[in-house]
């Protein structure tokens, strides 16, 4: 079995683009990914593609993957559309890694795309509620903000966390996103702003929720042989963990964490033969502020209930021991559902090549954490500099 490497990764701008389609957004991501390959990359060498999207809006609900690759001129390659809600492209990346590791592909394209801002508010919310547990959870009257707010209510009750703790996630991620030219909400916010925004679903306010976003992202996954040939600094996929969980929050044992995140992380760490202490940075799924707090604990960055302390002490700031969401995270960079997973890989690729907008000094090992729904599907990938940091 060959290892799988990322040799190129890129994303479109994340934001609201009435002039773009899901195909044209993917053009931008793909072009940036191809341009990031150090060597002379022939797109005809792509053997297969795995593209993630939820299909918000119901546009090309069937066969949107082939529609994208044909649009790109990757004529005839097998393309699989992957749907696992917000973890769609985390799973697309996993598929590409599996294809390369198995030897069926030398180069596989992983990516994702979503257009979320070109429809009415009611229509948008219809789609934001389709990945919760539909028959019971949604029919109690929730979209995702409501489900994560319930998680927050239980977490705050259990651990005494406060609105201030939730708000620190926004302050940190906006500070990072302000440096990212691709970010949708690339501005800084003060703790006061973040604490006093109007409620979306109490206890979550506007600053505790990511935006809806149009965008696309892509990563080129290659075999060791191709990586050595085409990349000066390929990024090795050291661990690929994934896990499923019950789709509804009410169906799960924990209301304060995401069990599938814990399992996926353990699998990724085991495969990479590292632990959370070995990480230099992480991109975690902060669709809502509570999700970042839960992620710290599910991914083993700290004990249960300790996440607010990590934020308070600056541990996850860019100059802390374990910087989290240097890209701005979903909160500031934006969350085009199907594009988020590979979007996180774009940041990991940049960090490990020393090219990030908010660069972590000496970044050798990083993690990405992508959650579908409120925890029904999770991927965790561990990436390493293949040159051992000696570039």
């Amino acid at each position: 079995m060959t290892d799988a490497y990322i040799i190129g990764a890129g994303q479109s701008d994340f934001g609201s683009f009435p002039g773009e389609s899901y195909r044209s957004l993917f053009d931008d991501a793909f072009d940036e990914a191809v341009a990031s390959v150090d060597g002379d990359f022939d797109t005809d060498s792509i053997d297969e593609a795995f593209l993630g999207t939820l299909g918000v809006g119901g546009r090309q609900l069937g066969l949107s993957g082939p529609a994208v690759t044909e649009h790109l001129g990757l004529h005839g390659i097998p393309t699989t559309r992957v749907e696992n809600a917000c973890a769609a492209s985390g799973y697309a990346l996993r598929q590409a890694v599996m294809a390369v590791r198995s030897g069926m592909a030398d180069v596989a394209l992983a990516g994702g795309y979503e257009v979320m801002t070109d429809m009415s508010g009611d229509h948008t919310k219809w789609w934001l509620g389709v990945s919760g547990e539909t028959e019971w959870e949604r029919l109690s009257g929730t979209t995702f903000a409501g489900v994560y707010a319930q998680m927050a209510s239980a977490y705050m009750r259990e651990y005494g966390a406060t609105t201030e703790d939730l708000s620190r996630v926004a302050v940190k991620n906006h500070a990072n996103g302000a440096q990212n030219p691709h970010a949708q909400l690339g501005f800084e916010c003060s703790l006061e702003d973040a604490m006093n925004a109007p409620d979306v679903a109490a206890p979550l306010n506007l600053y505790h929720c990511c935006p809806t976003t149009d965008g696309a992202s892509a990563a080129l996954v290659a075999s060791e042989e191709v990586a050595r040939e085409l990349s000066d600094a390929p990024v090795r996929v050291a661990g690929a963990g994934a896990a499923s969980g019950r789709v509804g929050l009410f169906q799960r044992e924990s209301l304060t964490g995401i069990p599938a995140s814990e399992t996926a992380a353990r699998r990724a760490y085991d495969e990479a033969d590292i632990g959370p202490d070995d990480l230099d940075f992480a991109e975690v799924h902060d669709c809502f502020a509570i999700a970042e707090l839960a992620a710290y604990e599910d991914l083993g960055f700290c004990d249960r209930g300790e996440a607010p302390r990590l934020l308070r002490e600056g541990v996850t700031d860019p100059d802390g021991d374990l910087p989290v969401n240097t890209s701005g995270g979903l909160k500031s960079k934006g969350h085009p559902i199907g594009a988020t997973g590979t979007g996180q890989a774009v940041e990991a690729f940049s960090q490990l090549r020393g090219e990030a907008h908010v660069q972590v000094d000496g970044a050798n090992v990083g993690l990405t954490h992508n959650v579908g729904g409120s925890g029904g599907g999770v991927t965790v990938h561990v990436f390493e500099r293949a040159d051992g940091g000696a570039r």
Partner: protein
Amino acid sequence: MSSDRGIVATGAFVPHLRLDGDEIEAAWGTSAPVERAAVPAADEDALTMAVAAGRDAIESSRFEASAVDHLAIATTTPPLEEEEFGPRAVAALGLEADSTLATATQSTVAGADALRSAARADGPALAVVADAPTGDPGEAGQRVGAGAAAFLFAADGAVVLSDAATRSRDAPGIRFRESGSETVDGLDITTYERETIRDLVSVAVDALDVPADAVTAVALHQPTADIPHRIAKALSYDAETVTRGTLVDEVGDAGAATPALGLLAAIDASEPSSHVVAGCFGSGASATALAFEVRASIQTGLSAALDAGVDVPYAQALRERGTIGETEVAGGGAHVSLPSWQRSIPQRYRLEAGQCPDCGAVAFPPEGACPDCHERVTFESVSLPRSGEIVAATVIGQGGAPPEFVPQQRRDGPFGVAIVEASAAGDSARFPVQLTDCDLDDVSVGDRVEARFRRIYSVEGVTRYGLKFAPE
């Protein structure tokens, strides 16, 4: 009919929201026709009120719901113009599917028909009168209210129906609702209306074989508080006897339900060995009078139902009733098909869960692999209690609701959504619920809540009902 057959238990339901007459006066600059009116919330209708009152009656009795084998429901406001709503009440109350059903509608005299139907039936029989009329805000809308009363008939009745009489006359136009209209109307020909009502009701009441001097309370047709007294002028009952059975100033004009609630008040006010009389009227016109012998006292539950309420401003009352704020929503409802919804009715109405025969874990809903041991088992049926503890909660504000809940939110404002944990069979199960009838600032994790049968949402013209939860 056994001579001992009669009412063994009763139930009452009055919506939580109340509109004070002062609000109506402030809005219209004229004196309010009623002192207070109950306002059905956006998630309430005649069916939900009927279920609440019916459940109250069954729970006050010695009978299990499954023992009740006849259900008679009366209302002038069935949720749909055509389609039976009785089967939904049967399912929601937990009656057996072979229960006989009788529905009386189309006029405010309907309540008397339901009472007679249940009185005549064999075995335990439930009569429920539930109504929520609406009217033009400047006319009948100033007095409309809502409520429900339920009467469980069985052997050894505490209150026995001793006689009944009906009179009719071709006299239309007093209270009617045109096809396709939601609002009750009247031609407002004062003398014609008053004389028709008085003549028919008093003649029917007079025809009863009842010792008039033993009658302690009468519940007469009461769209406003003065009408029963006008009727009584043609009878021998004094004002106090009439007042004991007059409730319209507390609940508003609740159509067929007002005289039924009045009958509960009359029973409440009567000692054993006394008699009470009901005189119902429906435009068209007909009157049915019923005489009851009170043999033993009954806890009617009426005062508790009347006391539990909060005042709302006039504009909110209009919104809750759907007079203003109705909206069409883009995007449609969640993709839960009617057949898949229908399959889950035992869970949605009665919280039927399953217990894993291998590990004992309780699963809700009872389908798929066991949530604990993950084995594919056949669950043993267990019922969750209708109350539990909130373990997670949020408030869905304006703009945060899935589209199928937007119409309700426009009418009823932000709503709470919680995960409730209930214990059963040595384990516990969690389920997500919407909260209702509560001040959202006062609800938090750790609170106890109990189930209420309500409208959940409507899609493609079909309203889906289920349980919401309110503070215990």
